[in-house]
């Protein structure tokens, strides 16, 4: 039965249900129990924002607080995955990936390839991403292009609670390493989510708004900014279609191209920095595969090529806003 829950609760429920279903699923990370050394479960914080709260009471030592050493525990998770467990390791913030990148891109992502297809590495690395949380330059980055660049990794970045639960369950059941990115600004966002377990396949974008005038391709927090922009544009008779990519590797090129063939106009919206981003990737793919369908130049709306500012006023300017998205759509309409 479906009811409204937040994205944060959807993550918790997916982990809980998969731990119940499959005894090989374990969860590890910094402070994910949060009660180490304290006397009782009531002290277990369940992670820095409480996402894993309550799971320790149900599943005990299958949740593990790790030392503050990303290279150690991400490496351990990847190793455990090759030996029969299905670890879900929480990297807390994607910004911390630098210290364990070798374990991710040189080890986990390469095993299937280097061992003749015989090695499986069913690990999920969960991490918060994105700006708007007043968390400054080292805790706010949208580093999606860094992980999509690496063959051998699957990359998820959902925009709502329904997709989050289905894609996280799919990620846990998948036999390859998955980088599961959670926009921290969306943790409180609620949508209808079935109580039952379910999956959403990788590589299937969602059309969150149907329209005829122009296509917006985006993912994560900017899906909602794009919906806001669409509402304002509709008042002027501009009827945009919004494609939520949901998974960035693999990426659903077919749905993007079908939409652009219908509308003839494309605006790529990405909270990542502009160079070599998801936005530039989608723009290039459409230019190559569907150039003749385009009635106007492709426009990109991204963060500027700067670190995320700590000043709230500047951070608000940094993230693509509904106004900037709307302006870009109007420019494609005028061209």
């Amino acid at each position, binding site marked *: *039965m*479906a009811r409204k829950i937040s994205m944060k609760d959807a993550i918790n429920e997916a982990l809980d249900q998969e731990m119940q279903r499959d005894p090989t699923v374990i969860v590890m990370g910094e402070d994910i129990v949060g009660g180490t050394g304290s006397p009782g479960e009531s002290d277990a914080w369940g992670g820095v924002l409480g996402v894993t709260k309550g799971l320790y009471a149900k599943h005990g030592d299958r949740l593990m607080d790790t030392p503050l050493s990303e290279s150690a525990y991400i490496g351990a998770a990847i190793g455990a995955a090759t030996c029969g467990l299905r670890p879900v390791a929480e990297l807390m913030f994607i910004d911390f990936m630098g210290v364990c990148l070798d374990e991710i891109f040189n080890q986990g992502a390469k095993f299937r390839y280097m061992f003749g297809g015989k090695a499986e590495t069913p690990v999920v690395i969960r991490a918060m991403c994105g700006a708007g949380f007043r968390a400054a330059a080292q805790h706010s980055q949208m580093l999606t292009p860094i992980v999509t660049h690496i063959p051998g990794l699957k990359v998820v970045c959902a925009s709502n609670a*329904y997709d989050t639960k*289905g894609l996280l369950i799919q990620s846990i059941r998948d036999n390859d390493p998955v980088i599961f990115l959670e926009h921290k600004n969306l943790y409180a966002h609620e949508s209808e989510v*079935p109580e*039952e*377990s*379910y*999956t*959403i*396949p990788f590589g*299937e974008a*969602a*059309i969150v708004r*149907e329209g005829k005038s122009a296509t917006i391709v985006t993912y994560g927090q900017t899906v909602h900014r794009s919906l806001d922009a669409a509402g304002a544009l509709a008042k002027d008779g501009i009827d945009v279609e919004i494609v939520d990519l949901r998974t960035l590797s693999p990426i659903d090129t*077919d749905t993007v191209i079908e939409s652009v063939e219908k509308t003839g106009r494309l605006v790529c919206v990405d909270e990542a920095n502009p160079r070599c981003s998801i936005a530039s990737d989608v723009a290039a793919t459409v230019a190559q595969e569907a150039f003749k369908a385009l009635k106007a130049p492709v426009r990109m709306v991204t963060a500027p090529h700067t670190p995320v500012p700590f000043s709230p006023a500047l951070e608000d300017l940094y993230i693509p806003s509904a106004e900037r998205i709307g302006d870009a759509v109007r420019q494609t309409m005028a061209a």
Partner: protein
Amino acid sequence: MSDKIIPIIMPKWGLSMQEGRLAEWHVKEGDVIAPGQEIMDVETDKIANVVEAADGGLLRRRVAAEDTVYPVRALLGVLAPEDVPDAEIDAYVEGFVTPEPAEGEEEEGPAYLFVETPAGRLRYAERGGEGDAIVLVHGFGGDLDNWLFNIDALAASGHVFALDLPGHGQSVKKPVGLDDLVDTLEAFMDAAGTGPAHLVGHSMGGAVSAMLALRQPGKVKSLTLVDAAGLGEEINAAYIDGFVAAESRREMKPVVEHLFADKSLVNRQLVDDLMKYKRLDGVDAALRAIADSAFADGHQSALLGERIGAADIPVLVIWGAEDAVIPAAQAANVPGARVEIIPDAGHMPQMEAAARVNEVIRDFLAGI
């Protein structure tokens, strides 16, 4: 104000509908409209459908514009006889207030109910009504919302129940066969306390209803079979297999188009909702088990027409003339039954030609 003025309002299809887009009028001012006549196309985020007139009369005013969104129960048009002056119609339009949805309308009465049965937890909907129970049984891959356009209308003829069979909708997900579904229908009627009931079964739900009627004639007062399974061997295997196998929207859309004479009714939301259902744990296994039990290799396992015809029970057979899943010719396979073929409808006449189907069923029930 003349009581001869009858409003045409935006319909409410299902609980979640808040507004609808009037896509196109099929009638113009000055037309005389008959009840059941197709008067306009309305689209919601869930479904597009033709609206059939609830009332007849002279269309004096088209208040609503095409290609425009209106809230549920908004005034779209005005019916009134010629002798009502224009000024009075103007005043009526001017004074019309769209009823606000009640605060937390969904809490007015329980939208969906659940009941525990030996087969597991089942979801159902109920509409109060005087008289005998009418139980609506959906088909393969469907759910109780397949009766969206019927459940309220049929409440005028009795106390209506619509359930989700196991493996479907929000009922328990487990692999079962056709016989188990019959057990479940009986268990549901006992648990929900329907008493002896008129069964209305669509497609596979028709076969399930007919099997229960043969097994427990005392519990079934009449049978209405809508594009029903169980009346002939032939069934479109591409539909059944395609529905079970579809793993993406792209694969599902052409499969679902088999269901309707008007394929434009298959919009993205309809396909998305089906995929959301199919992706629940256990649904795949449940659908495969039912398909293997009822429709293996493109042949129907249960052939019930002769036995139902011989049984002492009133039977109404309704079929969409354009049915691409089970051929309409099978409507003739119940000896002695009343048969109604619905033109321009496919496998889902209860949705595509809801007003006509409702009228036929109510007429049939009134004659029992």
